[in-house]
C-alpha cells in the first residue's frame, strides 16, 4: 500500500472518530485515551478507510506517510518518507466541500 499511518500522540484527543471510520486498522485500546494504528492497511479498502480517517481527524493527529516510489522513498533510497498532515494538505480534508453534501 502506498501509505503508512501514524498517530501523533500529543495531538490526538481520543475522540474515536478515526476508529469508527477505519476499524480494521485503528483503535483506542481499552484504558487508553489516544488512538493507535494496530495494523497498517493491507488492502486498498483498508487504505481508503485510513485515508478518510486521516482527513476527518479534527486534530490533524493521524498522519499519512506517503511512500511515493521516488528517490525519497525510504525503501529505495534510505531517505525519509514524506508526512502528510491529516486534513490539512489533502484536498478532501475537513474544511473542503468534499464531505459536505449540501450547499
Amino acid at each position, binding site marked *: 500500500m502506498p501509505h503508512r499511518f501514524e498517530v501523533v500522540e500529543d495531538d490526538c*484527543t*481520543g*475522540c*474515536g*472518530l478515526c476508529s*469508527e*471510520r477505519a476499524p480494521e486498522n485503528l483503535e483506542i485500546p481499552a*484504558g487508553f*485515551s489516544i488512538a493507535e494504528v494496530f495494523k497498517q492497511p493491507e488492502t486498498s479498502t483498508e487504505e481508503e478507510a485510513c485515508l478518510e480517517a486521516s482527513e*476527518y481527524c*479534527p*486534530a*490533524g493527529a493521524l498522519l499519512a506517510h506517503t511512500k511515493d516510489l521516488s528517490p525519497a522513498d525510504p525503501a529505495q533510497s534510505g531517505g525519509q518518507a514524506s508526512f502528510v498532515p491529516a486534513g490539512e494538505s489533502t484536498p478532501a480534508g*475537513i*474544511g473542503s466541500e468534499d*464531505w*459536505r*453534501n*449540501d450547499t
Partner: protein
Amino acid sequence: MSFETIDTNVKALWRFDYDSNIKPLRDLYEVAKKEQWNAALDIPWHIETDPSQIGDMSAPNAEPYDFVKALPKEKQIEFAKRRSAHLLSNFLHGEQGAMMICGQLVEVVPDMDGKLYASTQVIDEARHVEVFHRYISRLDRIYPIMPGLKALLNAVLTADLWQMKCIGMQVIAESIAMGSFKTMLAITHDEVFKKILQLTSQDEARHVSYGLIYMKDAIPKMNEPDRDRLEDFAFTAMTLLATTPQMEGGRSTDPFEQIYLELGIDPQKATSEIISRMMDPEAVRAQPNPFRDYAYPQLERVGVITDRTRAKYREVGLAA
C-alpha cells in the same frame, strides 16, 4: 432552594431535510451512541475513597507550597481533600452550564448532523453532573462557582451567534476541561476518581472534536463582521476564564480563603506564597496551563486566531 436565572435569546432552527450533510459529524454521532456509559453502574462506587490517595491539586508538577508542608500530615490530607472539592465543584457547575448550552446547540445549529450529535452531548453532560456531584459529596461540600467561570458560561448562554456558543463551549471550555482532567489523572491515586476522569475525558474528547469539525466548516463561510465578532468573542471568553479576579461583594477575594480559615492556615501567608509562585516565570512554565497548552492550539487550528487578534493573546500570556 438555590437558583439564579438568566435571560437568553435563542432562535430555534428547524431542518426538514433529514439526510446527513456533514459526514464526520454523523460518524461522531455514531461513536457517541456506542460510547455511552452509566454513571450509576460504571464507576466503582463500592470502593471507599482514602483521602490520602486523592492528591493535592493545588501544585501540579511542583513542590507543595510551604504553607501546606508546614501543616501536620492529617491537615495536609484535609487540605488536599477540600482543595479537590473546590476544584471539582467548579467542574460540576461547568458541566451544568455545558448541559444547558448543549441544549441550546440542539436548537440553534443549522445542520441535522450537528443537532443529532449535540443531543448526545446533553446526556454526556448530565452524566458528568451526576458523577461529580456524587464524588464531591465523598470529599467535602459544594463550593460556589468562581466568577470567571460564571462569566464565561453566561456569555456563551447569551451569545447571539451559534458559532460563538460552539467556540466558547466546545473548543475553549471543553479543551480546558480535557487538559485539566489529564493533569488530575496524573496526580490522583484514588481508583474511583481515576475512573471518573477516564470516562469523562473520553466524552470530552468527542466534545472538542465536534467543535473542531463544525468550526472548520463554518468559520470560512461567515461574513467578515460576524467573523470579527467571533474572533473577539473567543479572546474575551479565554480572558474571562483565565484572568477574571475573584470578586465577592465588591472586594477581591482568594477563592480558598474559606478553606484556609477552617484549617487554621494564615490566608495572607498562603495567598502571598501563591502569588509569588505565579510571578516566577520558571514556576509558571513548569505548571500545566490548559489555556495555553490545550485551548489556544485548538483555536489556532480552527482559524479563529488571526493576525488581528494573535498579539492580544500573547500580551495576556495565553498564547502557546
